[in-house]
């Protein structure tokens, strides 16, 4: 049987599209935004750029980094997790409550519990087909209520401060242990996404869930996994907060929700899913933290601080978002 002569290999030998300088720059934009912000704060108040000040900033940022890292994977899948902050608050209460009985394994127990809660949320999302926004919004108020009830509506002091003492130590004298843990989380999640097929599944789901499903990717499993991770990260962030506050309280982390989502977006991850990465959220969380603490510390009055915060955060996103990857911005 004769095989038809098909097109010869393309005459114009295709060149490998090499990223241009501009393109390379855009992928580092979150870091550039961070440096610019730091420089600006230092110009306004030279006292801000000291080792102790920076150390305090990264220590402060650690729980936010962990929260944002977990939620980033959900966002990459095209969903959103609004329950992280409330879950984190609940976890601080659980940690303080369980510590006397469980001792050394409390951390593992709390992270396992929040991971399980995240998993349940994920299952509700994929099985009942409820938008993640609603599942997690409902989750948010449910966890808040549980936290309020189990804590008897008040803070629960740590029975044993040594249990979380290690998180308040400094590595090499300057690097706060909590931040090291946060970096580890970011590193591990990045590696797992980068080195296993999970990464491309997550992105495929984010860009086009139906195509991913019809390609036989384990869509539901990956999504449930993302929510589980997000829950686990909320638990870990809770332990960091407890180590800082020496107590658990039913509303401790509630205000971290918008900063965490802001960190993800400022990092340049597309809120619609698909495009982004976890390390970007690390940079985003640092930018958000600097804004939250830096502006008042360098002496911006409260009202102007809010206006500046709004303006800078919008500008930061304008800088970091890689628009070549997004057809439409919603």
């Amino acid at each position, binding site marked *: 049987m004769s095989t038809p002569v098909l097109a010869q290999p393309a005459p114009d030998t295709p060149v490998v599209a090499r990223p241009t300088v501009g393109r390379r720059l855009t992928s580092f934009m979150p870091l550039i935004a961070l440096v610019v912000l730091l420089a600006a704060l230092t110009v306004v108040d030279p006292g801000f750029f000291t080792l102790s000040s920076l150390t305090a900033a990264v220590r402060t940022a650690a729980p936010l980094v962990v929260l944002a890292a977990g939620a980033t994977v959900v966002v990459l899948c095209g969903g959103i997790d609004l329950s992280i902050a409330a879950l984190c608050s609940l976890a601080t209460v659980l940690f303080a409550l369980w510590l006397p009985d469980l001792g050394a394994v409390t951390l593992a127990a709390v992270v396992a519990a929040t991971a399980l809660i995240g998993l349940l949320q994920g299952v509700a999302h994929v099985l009942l087909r409820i938008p993640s926004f609603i599942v997690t919004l409902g989750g948010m108020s449910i966890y808040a209520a549980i936290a309020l009830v189990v804590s008897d509506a008040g803070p629960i002091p740590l029975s044993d401060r040594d249990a979380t003492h290690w998180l308040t130590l400094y590595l090499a004298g300057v690097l706060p242990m909590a931040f090291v843990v946060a970096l580890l989380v970011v590193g591990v999640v990045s590696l797992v996404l980068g080195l296993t097929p999970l990464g491309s599944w997550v992105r495929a789901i984010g860009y086009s869930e139906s195509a991913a499903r019809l390609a036989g990717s384990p869509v539901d499993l990956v999504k449930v996994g993302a929510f589980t991770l997000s829950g686990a990260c909320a638990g870990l962030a809770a332990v960091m907060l407890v180590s800082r506050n020496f107590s658990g309280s039913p509303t401790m982390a509630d205000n971290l929700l918008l900063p965490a989502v802001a960190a993800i977006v400022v990092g340049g991850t597309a809120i619609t899913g698909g495009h982004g990465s976890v390390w970007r959220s690390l940079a985003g969380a640092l930018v958000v933290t600097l804004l939250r603490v830096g502006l008042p510390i360098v002496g911006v009055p409260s009202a102007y601080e809010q206006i500046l915060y709004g303006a800078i955060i919008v500008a930061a996103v*304008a800088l970091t978002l890689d628009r070549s990857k997004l057809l439409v911005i919603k």
Partner: protein
Amino acid sequence: MTSPAEADTEVVPPARRPRPRRGVSLRDAGPPIALVVLFGVFAALSPGFRTVSNVQNVLDAAAVLAVVACGISFVLMTGSIDLSAPGIMGASAITVALLVANNRNDNDLGLVGIVVAVGLAAALGCLSGLALVLLKVPSFMATLGVSAVGLGVATLLFAGVQPNVTDPLLEGWAVERFAGLAHLTWIALACVLVAWAVQRYTRLGRYAFAIGGAEEVLALSGVRVAPYKVAVFTLAGAFYGLAGVMVTSQLGAGLVQAGKGYDFAAITAAVVGGTLLTGGRGGILHSTVGVLLVTVLTNGLVQVGVSPYWQGGVQGLIVVAAVAAAVIPQRRRNQVTK
């Protein structure tokens, strides 16, 4: 190879086709049914709930949220999200309180003051839209930023002393009643009707709907999308501004926190009502049903006497359950839920 003409015999009488959908369909029936069920359950459980005065109360309580939801629905229709309600409402609340007769200054602009406040709110909304289309910042962040700006402006104007409103017009809105409902409730109803007409009968409304459906297609058809997006955010801002004015009328004072919590409440209402966050589905009437659902829920839980500690949790659970029930009729195998 046969030419197509040869296959002409393939011509067959029009085959059985699914009837193309026009207007409303059963797919949209979930939320109203959930509303009726919820209403029925509370009415059965609590005698206080099923009184006429409580129904009036529910409608009055829904007024502000309904106006906010009108605004947010347009934004959600385009597939964007809007978190700017708290900031814009705060700014407009303080502004109106300082412009109408009040205890801080000698202004007495009356209706003009209200218009100015709504105008300021529309300008802030416009700012979100511009950040979205000019800076290409996703609406989530753009509106979060504008909310912070609005709160900052409000705090500046507030200057540490609460402006109390003494304007009879504004005070009358909350106190005076017509046919059993406060004037505010009628204003909200008018807003819903206007918003519905805008959605149904104007180019802005239909294009907002289309932007949520397939933005890139509009561009291919030669429609410039950016101005419509800005207009949508401006319109939403104006609605938030009016809502801020309404809160001021209710509280008799301009509060920076006038809009606290209204962003998520309105989004919840819209989604519960059947609007998709990805855009292109739902609308004003959906959101209004959602607003009623949420308000009935809040009211009913108090009437039934659920402990304040548990109220939030029960509310969350019911919202999730209601949405789950509402999506059952439209569940498909390969459906995408985000």
